């Protein structure tokens, strides 16, 4: 067989908006929970991609290449947010409910009587993903920026959690602490605002 096969991917910027703008917007939106920011990230991604198009070697598909660019931009956003806000990881600078709000220190860290998980009943059958997300969005917006990033990115990108730690410059034990705290808060927020229990 003497047919030459061209495996090389090529870039076609004229088609980017039509083919990838919605996908990239959605990708960013669910990781930053902010429509304006997501729009900006899409634009920045196209601009960076255009600048870097001479270095594109065609090894990755066009879409994969663009996604990797936007992902880096999202991580940069969270990195910037964490320096700007003067360390949102320091719990004392953040007036969210402390762990003591959920757990009683004196009783081996058992649930506080008022904040125990309530019975959610048959939540699967009655749930509407749009409505759920709207409420979740509100709950996420109450988290410190970096926690939000750790939460959304570790859940949506099934990547190794070690990778997320590295990207966010966290040790793995800090990562679990953040996930635990974020989850306690989100769970309680959903219970109150979504299930109205």
């Amino acid at each position, binding site marked *: 067989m003497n047919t030459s096969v061209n495996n090389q991917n090529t870039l076609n910027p004229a088609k980017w908006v039509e083919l990838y703008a919605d996908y990239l917007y959605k990708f960013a939106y669910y990781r930053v929970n902010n429509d304006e920011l997501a729009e900006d990230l899409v634009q920045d991604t196209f601009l960076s991609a255009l600048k870097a198009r001479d270095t594109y070697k065609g090894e990755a598909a066009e879409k994969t290449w663009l996604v990797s660019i936007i992902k880096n931009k999202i991580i940069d956003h969270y990195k910037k947010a964490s320096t700007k806000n003067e360390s949102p*990881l320091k*719990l004392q600078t953040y007036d969210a409910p402390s762990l003591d709000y959920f757990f009683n220190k004196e009783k081996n860290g058992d649930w506080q009587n008022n904040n125990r998980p309530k*019975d*959610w009943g048959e939540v699967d059958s009655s749930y509407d993903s749009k409505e759920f997300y709207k409420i979740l969005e509100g709950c996420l917006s109450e988290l410190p920026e970096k926690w939000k990033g750790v939460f959304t990115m570790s859940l949506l990108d099934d990547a190794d959690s070690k990778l997320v730690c590295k990207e966010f410059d966290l040790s*793995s034990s800090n990562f679990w602490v*953040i996930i635990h705290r974020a989850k306690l808060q989100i769970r309680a927020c959903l219970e109150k605002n979504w299930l109205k229990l």
Partner: protein
Amino acid sequence: MEHIEEHKHKWYTFGCKDATYLMEKGSFVHLSFSEKVQVWFHKLICKYCRRFAIQTKKINAFFRISAKESSLMLSTQKKQSLNQLITEITKK
């Protein structure tokens, strides 16, 4: 690196705080045998942590579904302006 207090737990004071922490950790990495046993035993005796275990998994699943099934689109206006921008730059 920013300071954040590590979670430490001892078997003789193992409570709901520790159990929920390990459940969250366990959704990303494999827990050690002793961690698994502690969580398993705790869930046996604690109805609230049994609830938490189910609910936390549901939240993850619902969140993933919302992101996956979303029909969110970029506005036509923004698309037009992006197209213009790209055309201008590629012309140069």
